[in-house]
């Protein structure tokens, strides 16, 4: 008797629950009611204190109805723009003014316009961190001019420019993880206090028939303001300083010829120490394994002479580029290497006393670079055509 009672009552309860659930499916969003945001850009607006929030939305097309004509690239993205004080306000306004709900989970990157980067970003990105839909893995980049033109760029290779940039950064990530600056890395640097954040700069090249997106150096932030940038050569030096390079190239020029090396592995070791007279000294040891990729010249040298010479040459080149990057950073007073953080980690006690004057200390910091290059391989051919021995 009770069994039947309970069963039927339980059934009714479940039915009731369903009716309750039917009343509202709160998180239910059909795919066709969503705008998939692929990129967010921030630009400074004409009015002070306000900014332009640009959303790049990947457009979906039905395969059944329309014939897919790839020539009409204009259709592949939608660009939305709002001018507001904060990001979230802007996104909210865009959300309300569009026919579909914005889905931010698939946002690939945040592109900061140059002017907004120079004005300071700390107050601008809180919304990015707080919103549950914003992921820490999105990439941070600085646009050479305005973020809008990067997001609206129509490229040959990929119709959605942020997907293209994401692919590009993923590619660079395979060279060295320090190219790819995720929101997490960016915020981590900002929170750190002494380290300076960096972000790759992306530039739009308008050629006659097409547009191209290129990586051009790295923006350097002091506190949260962009103060300068590293050029390509310096950027390479910076990457090498950070170590963990898996592939890349070194090109060195000497009076005897030009040599290009392929980096098989490059690792660094840093020793941060306080000198007795009070300034900080960093000993940077670089251990690199290179391959010879291409040689031009060196005609009068035998292979036996050549190898030590090339080792020497590459060591010089690497150390020179590293120093160039370091000088650039030092001029800007920006500790992009995280030497302060290293110091903090290794000497937490001393750090407390010198933390306040780190800027000063960094300006006077001495960097000793010691490069050890191993050159085990010469590629497919042992001798080049121009060499003495190779001639018949």
């Amino acid at each position, binding site marked *: 008797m009770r069994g039947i009672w309970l069963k039927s009552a339980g059934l009714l*309860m479940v039915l009731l*629950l369903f009716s*309750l*659930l039917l009343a509202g499916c*709160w*998180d239910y969003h059909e795919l066709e009611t969503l705008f998939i945001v692929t990129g967010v850009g921030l630009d400074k607006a004409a009015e002070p204190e306000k900014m332009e929030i640009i959303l790049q939305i990947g457009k979906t097309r039905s395969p059944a109805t329309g014939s897919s004509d790839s020539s009409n690239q204009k259709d592949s993205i939608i660009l939305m723009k709002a001018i507001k004080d904060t990001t979230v306000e802007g996104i909210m306004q865009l959300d309300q003014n569009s026919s579909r709900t914005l889905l931010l989970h698939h946002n690939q990157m945040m592109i900061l316009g140059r002017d907004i980067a120079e004005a300071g970003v700390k107050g601008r990105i809180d919304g990015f*961190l707080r919103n*549950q*839909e914003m*992921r*820490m*893995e999105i990439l941070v980049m600085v646009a050479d001019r305005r973020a809008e033109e990067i997001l609206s760029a129509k490229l040959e290779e990929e119709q959605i420019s942020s997907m293209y940039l994401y692919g590009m950064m993923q590619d660079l990530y395979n060279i060295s993880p320090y190219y790819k600056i*995720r929101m*997490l890395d960016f*915020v*981590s640097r900002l*929170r*750190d206090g002494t380290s300076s954040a960096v972000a790759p700069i992306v530039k739009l090249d308008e050629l006659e028939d097409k547009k191209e997106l290129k990586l051009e150096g790295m923006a350097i932030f002091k506190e949260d303001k962009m103060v300068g940038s590293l050029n390509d050569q310096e950027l390479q030096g910076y990457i090498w300083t950070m170590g963990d390079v898996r592939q890349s190239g070194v090109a060195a020029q000497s009076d005897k010829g030009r040599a290009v090396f392929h980096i098989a592995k490059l690792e660094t070791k840093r020793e941060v120490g306080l000198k007795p007279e009070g300034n900080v000294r960093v000993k940077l040891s670089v251990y690199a394994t290179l391959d010879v990729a291409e040689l031009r010249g060196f005609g009068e040298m035998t292979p036996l002479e050549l190898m030590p010479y090339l080792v020497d040459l590459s060591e010089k080149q690497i150390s020179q580029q590293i120093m160039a990057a370091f000088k650039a950073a030092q001029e800007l007073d920006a500790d992009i290497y995280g030497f302060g953080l*290293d110091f*903090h*980690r*290794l000497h*937490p006690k001393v*750090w407390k006393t010198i933390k306040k004057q780190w800027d000063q200390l960094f300006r006077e910091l001495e960097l000793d670079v010691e490069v050890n290059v191993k050159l085990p391989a010469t590629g497919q051919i042992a001798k080049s055509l121009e060499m003495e021995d190779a001639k018949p």
Partner: protein
Amino acid sequence: MRIDKGSISGMQFMFAMACYIQASTLLTSFVAAVTTQDSWLAALFGSLVCLPLIWLFRSLMVMFPNQNLLEILDEVYGPVLGKILGAAYCWFFITLASINLTDLGDFTKLTIMEETPNVVLLIMCILVAAMAVRKGVSLVTRFSDFFVTVAFSILVVSIVLVLNQIKPANFLPIFDQPPIKYIQGTHIIATIPYGELVVFLMIHPNAKMSRRDTGRYLLWAFFLGGFTMLFIVLRDVAVLGNTLDMFTIPSLVTLRLVNLGMALSRVEILFVIILIMLLFFKIMVLYYISVLTVAHLLKIKKYRNLVLALGALMVTYGLTLYPCPVRHAASAQETVPFIWSPFEILLPLLTFIVAKIRKLPVRKEM
């Protein structure tokens, strides 16, 4: 008087405890916000500090193999004081259950269901848990081994997936915070997962295990749970570094960062799986124990009919406890360790001492 006559094996008892500790590892953000990159130290200290506590629980279980916590209290302090303490424990269990229930709601809202009202999530969970609670202890602890296995494998998989993002330097500097922070972190760890094992004093009479096995099972459960917690904290610190204390749920952020090419990314669903599964288990155990305690206090033989009413109370009471997750976290960091300590550490200790002094339990048979 044994209300639930179901019996479970010692292994099941062990897995239930291990699973219970694992479920608490989802709350590591409380510690992470206090001790940041040294959280793993807090987890380690907390575990070490709790070894005596585990021994204490084991002694109580061995001393009173056939009596649950309420009966022990009755016997040690006499019927009147025992009843009052029993009622206090009753409140403690119900509150604990409600807090975990709201935790499930809050975390689910934070991770996957942003707009769904809390109460719907809670009711669904309570209804499913009630199904098991009505059937008694054997069903409640039945799937603990399964849950432990799944949680463990997900932990291992997640560590493998974030291997390329681990930066060992993130652990440095060690001992950079004022000592009080470490004490606080240790205290939180000691009270939130380990001290809560006191709930198992309510069901140990149902577990069939010998005197010697009791300690062994407790220790194994402790290790299983403790290792899970330690590795979760280590993983999160290694990946997130100095941003660890920013996030409400660091483990979620860690898993979101997984990126092994386009295909193997966005695996935070793994976190959601263990979140729902483990918290559900914890809620189910606490729910069952609360029902049992109420039935025991009022000497009601059939506890089945109290289940839904208590479930309703848990939902409504839970919704009043904390107005928002922020207050919850603050209270968990600052005051909760002190509120829980009497129930989890002081009273068991006192009971143990008094029982020793009064030479309890009196052996009736001999």
